[in-house]
């Protein structure tokens, strides 16, 4: 039995606390994530998928319950502090990279994720060969544009870069928030394939939100459905392999009723 790397226990997250607009987004949510899990997360709009990510990453504080990393509570740690073990890729290509900094400078920033940054020279040149090799693995010409400001890259290149930045320094937990959704179908597929390869090669523990049932079924060893702030469906291993689109559809239509 593998030990869980991250546990969410009876997590309740509210927004607009103590105002008439108070909303409870996560309602007693429980989730136990094992090391090496690649979990695809499905759920309709407003179900709480992004709230779950923001709660894990520390953008939102929890109202009750606990979040444990390898048995230790991290519920009171700041967003910045949690980046020691956690990285994420956002849906919007604009959010993941610094537009006026070059591709190499962005990658260099990511090599020091969660570390203190000192008044020591950055040593960009020493990293160039490594960055060149890493980016050529993405197969989209990123390796030719290391000295280009990321603002002039295509959306696909930016997302590939964001993904590389998130995995450059191996995170304990990787959060992918529909990171291929803003891309055209072909680019989206290419990035998804590259993503899957890298997650398997590095044996990363990953949570991926997606709206593509195909991707949710095809990738990962575990599938979770969130609805109304709770985990309502959780399959892994063989059971997930045998899952079909029809079964998922019927599950979703059951939820609607």
């Amino acid at each position, binding site marked *: 039995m593998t030990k869980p790397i991250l546990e969410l226990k009876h997590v309740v997250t509210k927004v607009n606390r103590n105002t008439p607009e108070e909303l409870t987004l996560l309602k007693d949510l429980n989730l136990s994530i094992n090391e090496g899990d690649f979990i695809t997360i499905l759920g309709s709009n407003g179900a709480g998928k992004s709230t779950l990510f923001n709660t894990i*990453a520390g953008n939102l504080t929890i109202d009750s319950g606990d979040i444990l990393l390898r048995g230790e509570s991290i519920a009171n740690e700041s*967003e*910045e*502090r949690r*980046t*020691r073990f956690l*990285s*994420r890729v*956002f849906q919007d290509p*604009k*959010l*993941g*990279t*610094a*537009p*006026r*900094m070059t591709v190499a*400078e962005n990658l*260099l*920033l*990511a090599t*020091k*994720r*969660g*570390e203190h*940054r*000192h*008044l*020591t*020279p*950055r040593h960009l040149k020493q990293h160039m060969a490594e960055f060149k090799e890493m980016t050529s693995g993405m197969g989209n010409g990123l390796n030719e544009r290391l000295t280009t400001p990321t603002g002039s890259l295509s959306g696909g290149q930016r997302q590939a870069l964001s993904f590389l*930045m998130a995995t450059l320094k191996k995170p304990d937990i990787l959060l992918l928030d529909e990171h291929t959704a803003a891309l055209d179908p072909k680019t989206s597929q290419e990035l998804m394939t590259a993503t899957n390869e890298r997650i398997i090669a590095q044996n990363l523990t990953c949570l991926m939100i997606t709206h593509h049932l195909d991707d949710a079924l095809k990738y990962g060893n575990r599938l979770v459905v969130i609805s109304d702030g709770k985990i309502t469906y959780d399959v892994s291993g063989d059971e997930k392999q045998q899952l079909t689109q029809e079964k998922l559809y019927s599950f979703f239509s059951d939820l609607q009723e």
Partner: protein
Amino acid sequence: MTFGLGVSAIGQGLLWATLGLVLFLTFRILDFPDMTVEGTFPMGAAACVAAINNGISPIWATLIAIGVGMLCGLATGLLYTKGRIPILLAGILVMTAAYSVNLRIMHGRSNLTLLDKPSLLKLPIFAHAPMYFDSVFLGFTVIVILTLVLIYFLQTDLGQAFIATGDNEKMARSLGIKTDNMKIMGLMVSNGVIGLGGALVAQNDGYADVNMGIGVIVIALASIIIGEVAFGELTMNQRLVAVTLGSILYRFVLLVVLKLGFNTNDLKLFSSVVLALCMMVPVFRDMFNLKRVWKRGISTHD
């Protein structure tokens, strides 16, 4: 006479370039306008002149000016990051409060002179400098040191985190950069140097005045933007040098304005007009491009 005025303009340009250089940190890198400057600049001047009048050496007095400037920056930074007050208002609050503090520093007087008192410009090393060259030497030394320090800083891990904060705050935070600390640091460093600028200008002019801060943000921004308009696409390091050149150019523009017969009371109007025109250059460029597109649209293919 004209030569003397030219040299004086270069000296003034160099001394004032300190403001442009560090305003670059907040205005261009962190990407927000810091109004604190208008209170910090006279505070640096007042603190320095008051300290010298109290028998403190000019070097220490100048360091005190840097210190009070940093405190102003810290105040704005805390109001902005921890107090969640919009940066423009946070700066205006500190700037307004600084006015009263400055009057306190100057014992209730609006003007404090350095008559017959020592200053950095009267240091023995400047004793043999020809007229006006003392400010050129002092300004040049300060600018070279400041530019080199900034170039080094921006190439460090901390400097890169600082740039990332201004470029994409959400990304910076997701990489573990404490963006609040970066902003406070930027405001403290920039206001510290603006305090220094106030001290240098006061020692050059021979007095501190409680109203000498009015419009300094326009002058500092003018040196940044004139530099950008005059030299176009540049690397980060070249842009820092361009600020100093922009500051000197700006002084020459003022010299021409005065030569045309306007008096010094008109200078603030001209400062604003010059800055506004320079900031509208991209708009004018677009208009001209548009014309070319129209011309192409109606021209026949032959």
